[in-house]
């Protein structure tokens, strides 16, 4: 079958797509967008996270046919509209600045998830961030710096700073989290 959809603002058509093919496979192998990573193929790790009509999904669990006529955003398109070409989206800049990148394999999925979180909730609590990011595994495991990066992006956004302008350098102090059973 033929699948037509928009990826990062560009129309794409993929021909001879087998019904069982995942959106992840089509992005990586047919459209030449390998930024989204294949790490578990069953929706456990979040490395392939993309937006589908704004919704955060695991591209490995979406059949390519389900993307027909819809809009997909991947890590490659995260900076689109965020400033001059070649610039980084605020969340990307925050990941670099906070040292939230290690091996980098979980990074694309985490960026898409974190970007969606901040769009939905511009000043999330630490508990909100941890919950939102818990579908994205990082084996390196850089959760603390990733948390810092999301806090940093949120703080910069609250301060109205452009991503490249001087903003808060250190992430704000952690806020206390309630603990189940306490």
């Amino acid at each position, binding site marked *: 079958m033929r699948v037509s959809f928009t990826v990062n603002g560009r129309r794409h058509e993929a021909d001879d797509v*087998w019904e*069982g*093919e995942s959106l992840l*496979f089509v992005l*990586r*192998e047919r459209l*030449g*967008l*390998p*930024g989204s*990573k*294949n*790490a*578990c*193929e*069953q929706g*456990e*790790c979040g*490395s392939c996270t993309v937006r589908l009509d704004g919704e955060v999904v695991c591209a490995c669990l979406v059949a390519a046919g389900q993307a027909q006529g819809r809009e997909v955003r991947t*890590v*490659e398109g*995260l*900076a689109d509209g965020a400033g001059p070409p070649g610039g*980084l989206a605020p969340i*990307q800049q925050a*990941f*670099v*600045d906070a*040292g939230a*990148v*290690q*091996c*980098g*394999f*979980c*990074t*694309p999925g985490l*960026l898409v998830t974190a970007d969606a979180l901040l769009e939905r909730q511009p000043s999330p609590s630490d508990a909100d961030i*941890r*919950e939102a*990011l*818990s*579908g*994205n*595994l*990082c*084996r*390196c*495991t*850089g*959760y*603390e*710096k*990733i948390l810092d990066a999301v806090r940093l992006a949120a703080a910069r956004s609250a301060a109205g700073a452009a991503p490249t302008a001087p903003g808060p350098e250190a992430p704000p102090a*952690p806020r206390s*989290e309630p*603990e*189940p*059973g*306490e």
Partner: protein
Amino acid sequence: MTGTTFGAVPWGPPLGEPVPRLDGRAKVTGSARYAADHTPAGCAHAWPVPAPVAKGTVTAVHRAAAMAEPGALSVLAHDDAPRLGDADDRTLAVLQSPRIAHRGQVVALAVAETLPAARAMAAAVRIECAPVPPDLELTPEHPRLVTPEGAESAQGDFPAAFHGAQVRIDAVYSIPPLHNHPMEPHAATAQWLGGRLVVFDSSQGSNAVRDALAALFELEPDQVSVVSEHVGGGFGAKGTPRPHVVLAAMAAMAVNRPVKLALPRGLLPALTGYRASTLQRVRLGADTEGRVRAIAHEVDTYTSPLSPDWRERATQPTRSLYAAPHRLTRERVAPLDVPSPSWMRAPGECSGMFAVESAMDELAVACAMDPIELRARNEPDVDPHTGRPFSSRHLVECLRAGADRFGWADRDPAPAMRRQGRLLIGSGVAASTYPAEVIPSSARAHANPGGGFLVEINATDIGTGARTVLAQIAASTLGIGVDELEIDIGRTDLPRAPLAGGSCGTASWGWAVHKACGELSRRIDEHQGAVPAGGLTVTVDTTEDLATDDQYTRRSFGAQFAEVAVDVDTGEARVRRLLGVFAAGRILNPRTARSQLLGGMIMGLSMALTETSTLDLAFGDHPERDLASYHVASCADVREIDVHWLAEEDSRLNPMGSKGIGELGIVGTAAAVTNAIHHATGVRVRDLPAQPDALLEAMIAQGRI
């Protein structure tokens, strides 16, 4: 290595600065290319067919249904696969024999136009085999348990000293099989170009991959290029060449086009190594003042027929850890019909330190002593195993500095006393240690006539920040900024270098980079500071620098502190606070170092509480092969966590004065957590992980709740 044959890197910026990762931008934009991200024109895809039994012989490979799939190209199996040379690693002799050594071993490989087609083909291949009963269970009475040469050590008279001790601890600890599960599954994209083999591989050391492929395909090493530019973690699983890269190269040869093979997650435990389960008996004999007189650590573990020389060397840290005149260590290993175990982050050290540091906590309780004071009291003057001095140690300083930061002074040692609602609260401590070693490496430095430098070395950045730190070492040696040079790593076309493993990458590569840049500086000086047209190039090798006799024991140390809350209704333990204080020489980049150490500690937390696997006795492999059943810590499992390091100066290490930090962070974490669980609940966790069902049962059995 005498510690005096090298000049030191000038200490100061950019070395020691938190320079942001040079590859950060490529990684956040999705433009960093990993092994499976390369798709040469005409690339076909491969999918492995795993052995359906744990032991036996393949009697027939039925290909017809698979070859009828649209897009089918080939099904390779032992009966038609290209013959391979010997690479001195039997796990790499893929499809060479009908014998099945373990469940999951690759017995056929489907190759097709597309990935879905290859997968459909693999499902359609029918393997007929003659199974034989496998030997899968490790018990202390296993008849094939042997003690290999070098796997035991004895000093003094342990049995007599232990028998005569006032206080005795005799306990058995167990760790289940644990899986590395780097986020990037092992993948390779292979291509034959004329007589040359070019491979993109997810490996921690591509020189070893090149050597193995050259031996297997009977090529000269320079006919093979291996690229591992970006690698999505490894933790030891990518430390040696693995079967996938051989299969990809073989398939590319068979179908005469490029082939990409990314292992499915579920095959990683069977094909890429894991931390073998250990049964560990620790005996400590001490006086009532907590002075350890006798220490014994005995470990039983297993390996596979394909890796006969492997063992989890869990007694190694015990040999050098605490003073005691009477000592015994012994490792026994049985060859079982199981997938090959291999390196997993801090192999041996991480396993052994769980047992020893748990036993030390038990001894502290038995002697009614503070566990930090107990460790301080047993601090050795020299390495008790070798009699050599430590190049530096500072374990006690780490313990004391950590105690101050953690608020240890206020701790009431009595167990099961602190209750907050449904939660029992407790804290625990354990030591960390890991060898600080160095391996010969080469490197090349080039000065451009128009300004600027290029530093080349086949180091691998598996997420550690090696690319960035090596640029810092080069820049500091040359007296320039990081932005005035280019660093090129991750390809066998570059000067040969050892793997990213054993926490010795930065020390080994950095030494070579420093040497190359130092000699380049001298060459530039000879030209009165003017780089001639055509530039200046220096290539160095550190083999001779490292060749002299060793006089010191070189190890990093640390102390980890955990606070846990255990739910009395569910038995769930959660780590509220985790603190690590380390002595690891000079920290070359605090930003990347912090991530390395925190990452190790979180993996240790995960080992303590959630990670567990089973060698299934009916099935012959691990049922917990995916990330749904093998639980690695997620963001929500981590709360307050912090890491600090001492300003340790050790001039006997390498030109940077650094010790490796990739593995130190995971060593001791599990014991700190389970010691805290004992303090919280009174229950001693001797079998990892501390899962709710077992903890709840133990609390009830002991009348704690």
